[in-house]
């Protein structure tokens, strides 16, 4: 199968949207595009599974075309289990995001155009095996976010949009320095080629921080996470879903695929810093969440905490923990998108996100309330949902790292399950349960598109939570390849 289709389909969707007239046409085209993407991904999953079990190489469906000869830049794409998991996540979130934006009246054409562009950037990023191409798609994914927040956002949207764009640009710039460092050493942008070389330790040590922090900013690395609360809370629902569900995963994926995979020795030397920052993010994010009163801020800060697990898993550098990091990326992507979708549904009806002003919604909007509760339960790591599987894998993997200090980090990270329960129950107890606020008597429950959006995401969450062996079988062989290199290269 040709992976380029994953870029072409969103691109064509974006173009087609520009020629549409009126909201109805626009959203139909967008939905069709998203559905085709999901179909492609399902097809890809089956094809990958068949080829992989019949003993394929590390990356499948590769294609390599020369792009810019003088700098040795290629359009080189291919996928392994990790990128496939990310692509699946993207397809699900794109479909759900399109569905919840069903009645975007304001500048609908531009809105859906940007969403399509963003998904194109994400797909391109995940399938790239060439660092430059990867960087190119990373930028494609950044710019639409600025506009989505700045134009369709709420609250102090200009400030938030600017802040988010600047911080992510800064992240990109750091990433670029890191990539350039690798390039000048290896004289290649090709991931597979570079992985086969050994970059001198001193070079690794210089450029690893650039790459890791740069990508880390995308995934809310403490203390560069402050764009997250503002960005998320000002963004329109679908943009929040894309931002937290997909964009933040670009960073985690980059940290693993580029920084750790290509510069394993430096990853080892800096592991303690990564673990320290990740642990702070987990605990501090959780406590900060506890004090929030706005539903979107709650979910945004909780994302800081949950993304900390991704970085913790990577920093611990055991096979299990890295598996856990990938699982957590997928799980958090689905869960947080569902959470934002539910918050969006509540907000569009009550016009407030303050938990103190809500209450008893279960009575009038049982479907939305149930969705909200499911997202909450997934967030606090209830078995049966994806969060549990991912977090437990991270904990289990982290504990396998025999360093005594890292054990403390693991224990602190585990402690967050208590704090998470506190803030989730607080939010649920105040907004979903309790006496009904009389002014909400007339609220209507979810419409078909909202139900479908929630259904898509919940299906993903439940499949991963009930049958985790499906997804671990997909990603574990690929993380094994990465970790075998990381673990053997250490002297």
């Amino acid at each position, binding site marked *: 199968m040709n992976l380029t289709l994953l870029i072409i389909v969103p691109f064509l969707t974006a173009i087609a949207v520009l020629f549409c007239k009126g909201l109805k046409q626009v959203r139909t085209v967008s939905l069709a595009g998203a559905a085709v993407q999901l179909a492609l991904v399902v097809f890809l999953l089956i094809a990958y599974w068949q080829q992989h079990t019949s003993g394929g190489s590390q990356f499948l469906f590769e294609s390599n075309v020369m792009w810019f000869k003088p700098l040795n830049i290629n359009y080189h794409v291919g996928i392994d289990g990790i990128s496939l998991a990310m692509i699946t996540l993207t397809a699900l979130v794109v479909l759900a995001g399109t569905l919840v934006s069903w009645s975007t009246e304001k500048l609908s054409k531009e809105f859906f155009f940007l969403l399509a562009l963003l998904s194109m950037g994400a797909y391109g990023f995940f399938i790239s095996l060439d660092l430059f191409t990867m960087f190119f798609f990373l930028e494609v994914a950044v710019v639409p976010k*600025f506009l989505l927040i700045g134009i369709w956002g709420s609250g102090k949207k200009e400030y938030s949009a600017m802040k988010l764009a*600047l911080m992510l640009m800064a992240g990109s710039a750091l990433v670029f*320095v890191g990539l350039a460092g690798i390039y000048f050493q290896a004289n290649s942008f090709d991931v597979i080629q570079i992985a086969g070389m050994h970059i001198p330790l001193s070079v690794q040590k210089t450029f690893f921080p650039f790459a890791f922090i740069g990508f880390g900013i995308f995934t809310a690395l403490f203390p560069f996470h402050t764009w997250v609360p503002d960005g998320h809370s000002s963004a329109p629902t679908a943009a929040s879903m894309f931002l937290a569900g997909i964009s933040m995963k670009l960073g985690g994926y980059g940290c693993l695929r580029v920084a750790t995979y290509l510069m394993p020795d430096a990853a080892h030397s800096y592991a303690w810093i990564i673990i320290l920052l990740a642990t702070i993010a987990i605990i501090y994010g959780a406590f900060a969440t506890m004090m929030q009163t706005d539903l979107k801020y709650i979910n945004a800060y909780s994302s800081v905490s949950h993304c900390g697990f991704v970085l913790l898993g990577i920093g611990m550098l055991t096979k299990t923990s890295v598996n856990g990091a990938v699982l957590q990326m997928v799980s958090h992507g689905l869960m947080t998108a569902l959470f934002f979708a539910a918050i969006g549904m509540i907000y569009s009806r009550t016009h407030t996100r303050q938990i103190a002003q809500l209450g008893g919604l279960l009575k009038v909007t049982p479907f939305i309330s149930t969705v909200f509760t499911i997202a909450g339960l997934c967030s606090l790591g209830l078995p049966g949902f994806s969060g549990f599987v991912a977090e437990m894998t991270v904990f289990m993997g982290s504990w396998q790292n025999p360093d005594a200090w890292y054990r403390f980090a693991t224990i602190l990270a585990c402690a967050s*399950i208590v704090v998470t329960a506190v803030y989730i129950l607080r939010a649920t107890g105040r907004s979903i349960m309790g006496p*009904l606020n009389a002014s909400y008597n007339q609220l209507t429950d979810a419409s078909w598109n909202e139900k479908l959006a929630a259904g898509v995401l919940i299906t993903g969450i439940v499949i991963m939570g009930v049958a985790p062996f499906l997804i671990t079988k997909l990603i574990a062989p690929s993380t094994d390849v990465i970790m075998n290199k990381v673990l053997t290269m250490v002297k």
Partner: protein
Amino acid sequence: MKERVRLMNYQQYLLPVLLLPLACFLLLGLFGKKHLKNASGVIGTASMFAVTIISVLVAGRYFFADGKVDGVYQHLIAYKYNWLAFSPTLSIDMGAIVDPISMMMIVVVSFISLMVHIFSLGYMKGEERFTTYYAYLSLFTFSMLGLVLSSNIFQMYIFWELVGVSSFLLIGFYYNKPSAVVASKKAFMVTRFADFGFLIGILVLSFYGGTLDFNALIQRLTAPQSGEFVSITTASFLGISMLTWGLCLVFVGGAGKSAMFPLHIWLPDAMEGPTPVSALIHAATMVVAGVYLVARLFPVFAIDVPALQIVTWVGAISALVAAIIACTQTDIKRVLAYSTMSQIGYMMFALGISRYGGENGLGYTASLFHLFTHAFFKSLLFLGAGVIIHFVHSNDLKDMGGLRKLMPVTHIAFLVACLAIAGVPPFAGFFSKEEILTASFHSNKIIYAIALFTAVLTAFYMFRLYFSIFWRKEATVHGTHNADGTASMKIPLIVLMICSVGAGLVPITKMVTSDGVPLETHMDVLFSLVPIVLVLFAIFFAARMYKKENGSAGKMAVAFGSFYKAATKKFYVDEIYLFITRKVIFNLIGRPAAWIDRNIIDAFVNGVAATTARISGLIKGLQSGKVQTYALYFFSGIAGLAVLFIYLWK
């Protein structure tokens, strides 16, 4: 401890035992509201009936036909699926363990659940969320059965969390009531905190044991020559061996779920849930999960005396403290809640004083025997309380009195249950309590004294309850007919009443022992006489004080002075927790974290941006305010730096 993996025909039926309640939950949860409104109770009850029949058949076959090999009960694995592989050695396998305790538990859980299902048909009739209620009951039953059948410690953790969430959903069933919401949150958070300990305990034990499988874990950690045993006992932290750490941390989880002091504060509040739910979850099944957990890992606990000692003392203190508090409460359900805590404390210290194998394992057997009998009479007490509350529309003892003529069935049932829990022969509680007393007498005299005193207090407060409800004064609520409730409410009461009389005769000592070898116990009449006389005296005393309103109760309260006041206030444990969470954690950690984020870290970021803008303004003499421009500067600056860097490097 031999393990034999074989798939015997009849054990396959354990799969429907698990899947029927799950299917029922999904059916009622997804489609119930629209399509099955009134049928949902019947569907739930019917599936539960089938589950109970299968459980009894499988357990009966195990105990009486082919569970024993050479006179020893075997640990069998009925099935096993690899669910999540962490690493080649550590994986979560979903399986079903077949051994004496799991078989005993599936009978108890499914039977009590069936009774509660039947009872609720009448009790919850007309409830707006009737279907949801039955869906939650099914979810709980599924989780609890999964918990007791777990063959893997992580599998148990999974179901452990699931029973926690079903308990949360059911406590908060009346979600419009703020007190119910608070209670459900409290229950979840306290047990979550305990589960944090459980989780770390699992990490510790599995790291050294190299497996998550119960049988393998027990085998490796109890074999003194094994590498795993040596490494876990030699490794230590703060001078305490990792084995003790691991076991104690796991026990924290058990103590949380079983409402042991000082993690008991959620249980009395959990009474906000519908009363049949209290009977099922917060009296007979879920709250004994902690006891079950210790019993499951008992061979490992038995080689680690410090851990066992902690179990003993936590159990004993809980038993005593709860009994004292129960004497002072005026809410019928709260009295029963503290009584539950006290009885579980009983089971817990019985495990703590026990050792592995033979006569030394009497405490283990006695503990599980008590778990067995307690399930019947305590659920009977709660269901009886349900009938009373249904009729009186109040939980408070002062609104009750003289009800014996109005509700004869409930009256007799409640009396039987009180006699059973007080330990009057020949009711069920007598036999199990008697064995706990024997075991404690032979191992620790202080514990024996506490146990005896608690038994006396138990008799006192239970009959205080009984006389206050059914005698004391003429009924204030005047008799409509049928105060006993519908037939569906009477039947479970009668069935459980029969069980509360007869459960003591089930030869648990011959079936459930620490090493699987049936135990011969003999009753020493003279020894049993002491508790019997004391208990009868306590009942007599309660009758004098509460059978007629005569002010003697008030005088007693005055005589105990501030101690009485402290006991009514539950020894201020709740206040201490509130202080720690509200004042310390919220104000000293949460608030500063949120503040720092906005005012220091974010301010720094904004400061950097502002400075950059100002500098660029100075340099370029213009401040466009456009993000593209800023980005361009930023970008080109960094790129320039990078080039410089690389140049210098080479």
